[in-house]
């Protein structure tokens, strides 16, 4: 199981990096989401994998027969935060697609030529 998870994490990370380097908006979003998933799984596996053990223990229970609740709490927090970030990224990219009228990241270069395009700057 551990080996399988390790491979999954590796595949997720490499797929995410590959997608982040592509030029399409949509692939960027999928890349961001996969990157988040890979990190969450990594967090889980670094907290040691246990199978079928509870995270909460009755008073006087066996401390060895217990899953570490701390990484689980961290992952829960990270998932919620990541969800918010991804939602924002999706809206941002959708809005950009509507305004810039391209889904090619290589065309997103207004910022490099600002000097010539900001004549109509208004405060």
């Amino acid at each position, binding site marked *: 199981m551990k080996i399988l998870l390790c491979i999954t994490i590796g595949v997720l990370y490499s797929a995410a990096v590959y997608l982040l380097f592509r030029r399409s908006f949509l692939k960027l979003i999928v890349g961001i989401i996969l990157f*988040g998933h890979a990190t969450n799984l*990594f967090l889980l596996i670094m907290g*040691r994998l246990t199978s079928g053990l509870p995270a909460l223990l009755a008073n006087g229970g066996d401390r060895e027969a217990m899953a570490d609740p701390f990484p689980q709490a*961290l992952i829960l927090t990270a998932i919620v935060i990541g969800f918010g*970030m991804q939602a924002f990224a999706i809206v941002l990219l959708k809005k950009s697609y509507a305004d810039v009228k391209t889904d090619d990241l290589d065309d997103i270069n207004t910022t490099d030529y600002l*000097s010539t395009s900001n004549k109509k700057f208004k405060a």
Partner: protein
Amino acid sequence: MPDYYLIIIPLLLPMLAATVCILCWQYLKVQRWIYFLATLTNVVMAVQLLLHSNTGEIIAMQSGNWQAPFGITLVADGLSAIMVFMGCLLFFIISFYVKGNINQARLKSGFYPLLLFLQFGVLGSFFTGDLFNLYVWFEVMLMASFVLVALGKDKAQLEGAIKYVTINFVASMLFLAGIAVVYGIAGTTNMADLSTKIHDVDPVLATVASIFFLVSFGIKSALFPLYFWLPASYHTPPIAISALIAGLLTKVGVYALLRVFTLIFTHNVGFTHEILLWISAFTMLSGVLGAIAQSDFRKILSFHIVSQIGYMIMGLALYTPLAIAGAVFYIVHHIIVKTNLFLIAGIVAKIKGSFRLSALGGVYAAFPFVAILFAISAFSLAGIPPLSGFWGKFTLAKAGLESDRFYIVGIALFAGLLTLFSMVKIWTQVFLNKVPEEAPEPNYANQWSFLKHEYAMTIPSCILVLMTLVLSFYPEPLMQLATLTAAQLTNPEHYINAVMGK
């Protein structure tokens, strides 16, 4: 027990104020007053905290009264107090600038609550004593800054925001992976607890963990070779927002680096801090060379942020008390000066209607007041004695020479020379040269008509210039505080004892 209010009030006030601002969504005037009063109160609290930290005492608060390694600890030591003070001050003075710089559409889209949430995240990052909690504060801060960068209907802003959001998301995830590694090897995320436990684990694994933090904080603080997102996004939002994030947000990354590489990862200084030293050299040089190639007021300033971050990291990398004191001094100096330069760029653009160097000119002749404000900040940034940048650079150079790192001192001084060159470029082009013929009509005839209409926009600049002059001619109090902070950072026992309650 009695001093906890110095942490709780600055932290909770922005959040409460932001919530009230959201409830008063329709009433901009009410929002403005809430923002003004909340940030003013925070400045007062931060001054008290600064005076308290000047005695050398570290306040450690266990939230929910859960004892140290189990609960979330909030700590205020010298470094936190200095950074909190700068954070509170910037958010306060920016309130004068907003009216002339931010248009109604942006104000009505929740500008004030976003600023307050940004302050909430920034101050939380400075106070927290727990790595995972630091991640959460970073996200609070980033979320607010994402929206602020993208706020408005500007095409360039959306494009800048895409780059900013993507790279910061990747950095955050690397930070989280670093936390996972640290928890996996040491079994804790409390920084003080880690500081002792990291010495018991395999040093190779600890070094691997440290690289995660180096890369993720390196992206956030724009170190070489991870800085390319910064000049591509920081200049796109309106100046009031640019100035805040340029002055403060990269410094949060520097703060995190300073904290992590003095408190936790000190097991293999010969490796980690040597990398940092080389990175700082390349950061200084590549940033300033990038600035020389630019022809937009804001882009030049954005590249200079990168270059100046190099000096702060150089202080950290030398890792002697004097060097870290120099780095702390430099952070304060740079926050003041860089914010001011951005604010003045905004004033010039308000007058002339452009940021392009080739479309600007003659500001000195018609607006000598603005020119003086710029000159003091610009030459302080370049490190001309006796201005404040000189004392920062002097301390860093002295520390470098004392640890026999002559090459880094040479690079730092050379980068300073190039900084002077590009500041002189702005100075001659924008302030001394004649107005170019194709330039549009300026919005104001002379400085009196400008001051009559937009005097509020110059208030923050005046305050910051005044602070620069105080730091220039009377650097002693800050230098003492920086030395005290450096002593705390290089001897983490005080910090650990304060947190673990021994």
